[in-house]
């Protein structure tokens, strides 16, 4: 079975946003009301200013003082509204953010069936950060939008009531501007993208050049690296300047249109202001309302663009999740922001392994490589080794069996068909150590336990031959390891991962090539320890080490994705040239 590219998921951005807004409905509505007030209050102080100037003109000083008091109060009121609205907005924003992130991670970590990230983990993290952010920004458009719309309508009505002609004439350039910006937005995006790409090329190159710094130094090519950086920098300068130029032009057109509109008010009102039918106060009102009116039009233009971007973000999230339904992204769950998260559910019940069987197991990568039609049997207490050259499909076979890759074929456990290997092959049924195991930036203890019972810790450390290393560490088991902690050696990482597996006491232990990071001596100790440990261990092991091969009850020799032979070491060495070569290749002359 190959992985077919999924059809573009069908979803409605608005419906998903609706799902988010209903997560904390009350909080959302309060935000709507408060931000609505925040955005419409400026109409009040523009109007107060108008009244003030009109009263002054008429010589009504009392009226002017009252208007001034109203002006001051309106401004203070805006402060009050802002103070309340802001905290509530942060509450809403970060809750929705957290919900989407939780849903994404939960699906990846716990949903059934094989899970494969479409890109690198770093790329995937940007779904959690940048795309989740896009969604939050779109939310902001909704909470702000109602208020801004109200402002625009009230301002327009006010201006219309004073002078419909001038209102229409000054609003025209504002609309024109919005249309122009919309018209140019594709160009802006293209410039922005080019500028970002140019930046990515610069940073990628710097990263690559320093990753290869010894190669570069050894080839005495430092000057060429600098020259290449200069070329890339020049490209970026051009791209960035173009971006700046267009953005600045649009920005100044933006501001200009307000000035032009104000100027037009002056021109159109020149005669009527002289005649007194258009008052100074009216002018003040127009001049004060116009900038915000212009902003509100750009705002709605921006909202359209944000709608599209949010759609793209949802799409990217769905691509990350693979088989999730769109609604899952916004599903309502408790985030436990003020309480302890509940304990993880208990593992499935233990059931003794008698026989694990795979028939016609097939898993192919896009490159066409992989494993085809593999039959495999592992019985209770057996030590089964899968061996073969690099690229023969050993790892793929293990991963397909455990459901870490989508695969075809039939897998049975004690004769019963396994429907979803991904959720079936977990402790206490099986446990797995991958070829390049990943430790996390937490203490060694937490790394080994990963939620398992503390009582098995010491035995896990002994079995994995990690105990001597632990005593060497300054803080022992409490040492923080991983990317942000103490760097363990490759062998220590492998053994810590093995310990993590032993801590779960599973029926079937699956090892993917520990030998790439362990020396022969340590690997031998590990197998010996495991053999002495009580209980009938069933092991499925990828290895080319003699220590493993000698111990094997059965060896499967893999070549180009197929099992070319299987049996005990002695018989294989006699009849299989491939096995003989692999045997001879072990124990390299050096390391």
């Amino acid at each position, binding site marked *: 079975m190959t992985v077919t590219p999924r059809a573009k998921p069908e979803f409605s951005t608005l419906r998903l946003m609706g799902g988010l807004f209903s997560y904390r409905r009350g909080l959302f509505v309060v935000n709507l009301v408060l931000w609505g007030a925040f955005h419409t209050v400026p109409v009040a102080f523009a109007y107060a*200013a108008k009244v*003030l*100037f009109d009263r*002054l*003109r008429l010589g009504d000083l009392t009226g*002017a*003082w009252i208007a001034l008091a109203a002006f*001051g109060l309106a401004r203070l009121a*805006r*402060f009050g509204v802002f103070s309340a609205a*802001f905290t509530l907005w*942060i509450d809403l924003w*970060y809750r929705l953010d957290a919900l989407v*992130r939780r849903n994404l*991670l*939960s699906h990846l*970590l*716990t949903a059934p069936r094989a899970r494969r990230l479409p890109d690198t*983990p770093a790329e*995937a*993290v940007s779904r*959690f*950060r940048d795309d989740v952010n896009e969604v939050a920004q779109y939310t902001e458009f909704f909470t702000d939008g109602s208020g801004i719309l109200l402002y625009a309508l009230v301002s327009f009505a006010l201006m219309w009531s004073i002078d419909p002609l001038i209102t229409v004439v000054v609003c025209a350039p504002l609309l024109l501007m919005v249309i122009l910006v919309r018209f140019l937005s594709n160009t802006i995006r293209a410039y922005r993208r080019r500028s970002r790409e140019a930046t990515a090329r*610069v940073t990628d*190159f*710097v*990263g*690559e050049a*320093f990753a*290869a*710094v*010894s*190669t570069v*130094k*050894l*080839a*005495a*090519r430092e000057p060429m*690296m600098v*020259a290449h*950086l200069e070329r890339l920098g020049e490209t970026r300068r051009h791209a*960035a300047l173009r971006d*700046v130029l267009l953005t*600045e032009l649009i920005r*100044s057109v933006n501001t200009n249109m307000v*000035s032009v509109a104000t100027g037009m008010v*002056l021109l159109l009102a*020149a005669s009527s202001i002289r005649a007194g039918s258009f008052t100074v106060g009216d002018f*003040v009102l127009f001049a004060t309302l116009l900038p915000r009116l212009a902003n509100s039009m750009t705002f709605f233009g921006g909202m359209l663009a944000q709608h599209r971007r949010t759609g793209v973000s949802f799409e990217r999230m769905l691509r990350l999740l693979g088989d999730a339904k769109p609604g899952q992204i916004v599903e309502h769950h408790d985030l*436990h922001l003020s309480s302890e*998260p509940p304990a993880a559910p208990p593992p499935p019940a233990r059931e003794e392994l008698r026989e694990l069987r795979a028939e016609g197991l097939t898993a192919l990568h896009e490159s066409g490589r992989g494993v085809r039609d593999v039959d495999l049997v592992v019985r209770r207490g057996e030590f089964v080794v899968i061996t073969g050259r690099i690229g023969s499909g050993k790892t793929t076979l293990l991963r397909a069996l455990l459901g*870490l890759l989508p695969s075809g074929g039939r897998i049975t456990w004690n004769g019963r068909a396994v429907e979803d290997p991904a959720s079936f092959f977990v*402790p206490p049924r099986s446990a797995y150590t991958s070829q390049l*195991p990943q430790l996390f930036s937490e203490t060694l203890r937490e790394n080994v336990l990963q*939620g398992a019972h503390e009582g098995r810790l010491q035995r896990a450390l002994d079995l994995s031959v990690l105990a001597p290393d632990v005593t060497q560490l300054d803080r022992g088991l409490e040492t923080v390891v991983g990317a942000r902690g103490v760097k363990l050696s490759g062998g220590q990482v492998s053994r810590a991962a093995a310990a993590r597996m032993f801590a*779960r006491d599973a029926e079937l232990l699956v090892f993917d090539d520990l030998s790439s990071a362990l020396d022969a001596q340590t690997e031998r100790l590990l197998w010996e320890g495991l053999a002495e440990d009580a209980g009938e261990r069933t092991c499925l092991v990828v290895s080319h080490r*003699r220590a493993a091969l000698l111990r094997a009850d059965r060896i499967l020799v893999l070549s180009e994705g197929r099992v070319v032979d299987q049996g005990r070491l002695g018989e294989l060495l006699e009849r299989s040239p491939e096995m003989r070569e692999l045997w001879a290749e072990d124990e*390299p002359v*050096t*390391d």
Partner: protein
Amino acid sequence: MSSSSRSALAVLGRYLLPQWPRVLLLAVLLLGSIGLQLYVPLVLQRFIDTAQQQGALATLYRLAGVYLGAAVIVQLMQAGATYVGADVGWTSTNRLRADLMRHLMNLDMAYHKDHTPGEMIERVDGDVTALSNFFSQFSVRVFGAMLLLVGSLGVFWWRDWRVGLGVTLFAGLTLTVLLRLRRIGVEPSRQEREASARLYGFIEERLTGLDDLRALGAGPHALRGFLGVQKDFFWKSRAAWISRSVVWRASFVLFAIGYTAVLGAAVGMYAAGLVTIGTVYLYYQYMTLVEDPIDQLTQQLQELQKAGASLIRVGEVLALRTTLHSGERALPEGPLEVRFDDVTFSYGSGEDHAPVLRGVDLTIGAGRVVGLLGRTGSGKTTLTRLVTRLYDPTLGAVRVAGVDTRDLDTGALRERVAVVTQDVQLFQASVRDNLTLFDDRVPDDRVEEALKEAGLGDWLAGQPEGVRTPLAAGSLSAGEAQLLAFARVLLRDPGVVILDEPSSRLDPATEARLTLAMTNLLRGRTAIVIAHRLDTVARADDILVLGDGRVLEYGPRETLARDRASRYSALLSAGRSDLEEVLS
């Protein structure tokens, strides 16, 4: 002034001064636009007063026209200033980036061992980009804002010294208060950044280890951990935003008071018959010209601090010095002799740095192929590093063609001594650039030739644009990457080749190509091969066995093979399973 900020200023001067014409243009545009911005409200005032006094309609139209024109010119000048600022910023910082890259590349390997490529990106591009923002935006925004603020205050003083004094006090107070309040946000923001780094770090690690977690059934446990990390992030972010918003809240209150007070003063003066209604409007307008720059200044100050910190870091990096100074002597053509004169070496001084090589004394004749054997940690790699002068010996000397490497021109030495490691570093660039390492002087046909000689002829034929084809990440197999590394060396025709042969078993076809290419590579050259394979060792002229930094055995392969007491013959006869014991 501290020495670090002095060096920061020196950096600034070095990169800005050469661009003085554009810096001058920037200043002119900035001053011009600010002057006009200050002028525009005066036009409005005259318009209002003229209208109130029933002045000529023509005057009103003229004033409206002037207003329109001035407004347009202000915007054009501002756009121009931003553009020129960006250009100055990018040009000067690009120069700075190149200098930093040159400088860092020339630093010793000891430095690079301690610093990841990610850190280097931060040093060469991250810090410098903060500076570029400084040039392109800060100069225009902050400097412009300061000028505008001073200008508007000046107009208030000119109009009425009492109002001028009042508004100046107000502006001073507001700036002080806002800048002080901004500091409240610094610590919570730092905690927020930490929490955010933890959150995304947590996610990235779990995604990287997704298979491990799922196969261990630890998904729910990880999700539980995530909820904890996210809870922390939520509350830290919330606290940070709330503490940052204090500045905005204060600014709302202060400006509510400021506007009301200025308007109040104007109304009072109008009542006393001191000013016209146009002047009342003028004050109202100028208040905007006080508010905007104060906003800008409080916002941009953080950027200024960031740029300052970057500038200091850049100065520090530029002050680092290499300890390996290049000599001047050149090397002859053809295969070269390599001599170790009683060489002892350790990677650092002090007790915790035991010598990696101890009294290594041997000569490798020109054109000989030496198979280098030894366990991990026996000093094999270190020995080869000394030949290329990535490090200098602690005691003794390494001589190539009879010359102490310290007396040789380092560039010339590395041109003639080539190294192929197992770990082949590739660039996301064309095939050609990957081979020449961005050297434009090498013609395409030389590159093609080298690829064919390295056994990549067929592979090259499959590339749509030949040597100009971009090399996509992951498009080469491990074996092909090795061959490409061979081609890199073949392009240079070195006199000594140091080769760490691949230790992992590749598919048979690639392996055959590798063997063939290796023959081409070693022919007519002095070679030190760190061997992982018996057939490679079998082709060597001499065998060198290292153990614990000492020469255990060195001599012609055939002699050693015949000598029953030698480690090499023991290794041949004892069966390879206990080879490690033989070597130790």
